[in-house]
């Protein structure tokens, strides 16, 4: 397997669904970080045939991992310190997500007041359903993934 230089301290996001790494790069705003980021696309995997991997050399508290739980909680997060994996973090669906998905309900107050943050609240964890904090418009992760 291709090996992109070992990192000393940082995070390795493994088991990303193949093709999804750039989306995650944007969500985590890695473009704004002044650190080494490696993106590996279509790596071979025993578990999922093909996968993407992102390696970020940074202080492990810099990234907001809550959002990863929303994007795909099957991603494995390995915490690296002194070149070794010291922790595998479990991901959960965040209770609330801000400015990641937008409410598309034309009757929602956010449709006319642009400065309002778009906040979605987890309504049903089993069904992965979020609702707009303002108008309660449903946003189903599963439905949007199946599209």
């Amino acid at each position, binding site marked *: 397997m291709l090996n992109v230089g070992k990192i000393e301290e940082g995070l390795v996001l493994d088991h990303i669904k193949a093709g999804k790494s750039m989306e995650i790069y944007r969500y985590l705003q890695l473009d704004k970080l002044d650190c080494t980021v490696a993106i590996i696309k279509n790596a071979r995997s025993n578990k999922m045939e093909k996968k993407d991997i992102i390696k970020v050399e940074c202080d492990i508290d810099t990234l907001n991992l809550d959002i990863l739980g929303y994007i795909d909680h099957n991603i494995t997060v390995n915490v690296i310190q002194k070149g070794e994996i010291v922790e595998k973090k479990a991901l959960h669906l965040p209770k609330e997500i801000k400015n990641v998905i937008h409410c598309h309900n034309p*009757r*929602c*107050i956010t449709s006319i*007041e642009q400065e*309002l943050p778009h906040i979605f609240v987890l309504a049903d964890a089993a069904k992965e359903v979020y609702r707009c*904090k*303002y*108008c309660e418009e449903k946003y189903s992760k599963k439905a949007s993934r199946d599209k």
Partner: protein
Amino acid sequence: MNHLLSPLDFSTEELDELFDLADDIERNPEKYAHVCAGKKLATCFYEPSTRTRLSFETAMLNLGGSVIGFSDAASSSASKGESVADTTRVICCFADICAMRHPKEGAAFVAASNSSIPIINAGDGGHQHPTQTLTDLMTIHALKGRLGNFTVGLCGDLKFGRTVHSLIHALVRYENVTFKFISPEELRVPDYIIEMLREKEIPYEEVISLESCIPELDLLYMTRVQRERFFNEEDYVRLKDFYILDKAKMNLAKQDCLVLHPLPRVNEISVEVDDDERAVYFKQVQYGVYVRMALILKLLELA
């Protein structure tokens, strides 16, 4: 800070307290005539709804308080592009409590998030209109003497009717309520409500004929079919006269079956029914004032 944004913000225990207070207000209005002296209610109405606004203003005046506000967006600073958040911060400097109506969903939530005074949602688009639900429950509580242990028929536009959806959500919290949904095929209750009833194992039936169902009812909640919900005039005309409650149908109903309607009615209840003592839709308006009085007192922590 206490606000009222959704009909389910209050627990059934809190509602019992609120209705008991409203009962007392009905019996002893003079006792409450000055309790809000020196207090101001702001009615911030970004879209006109004269009935709701007057009900709130009457409630505050009956309590000895005073009223300020605006009755449509054109006469407010919203026409200059001011946000709901900013308007709310300004209103907080003028008034002690605020009732807000806005065409967009979630507007009252935005107001409450930026407010140091209690906000009452007086309708946010098609989303919530909690004081209508409180009015409906109060009317049932006062005239039926109980909330629960009855069969309630909801008739008319059950698809788009926000009032009906809120009432269903409020009534499922009480014991032994059976629902009869009476509507044309096109205007049936949304699936998510049916799913909710199934999950909670609450008995319900969807029927088309009002005549066949009316003898079983302890309560009949009539609604208006609204023109603005339809894309074509033809469908509207066909469905608007689908149900007309008249004397003949009332003769089939139980002796103590109450008829409610959120008003305004168009022609879905014939005027010949108005004299029937079971027709309580105008009393409902009066209970709307009592329950708003009780609500203002609760939110201002004066009772």
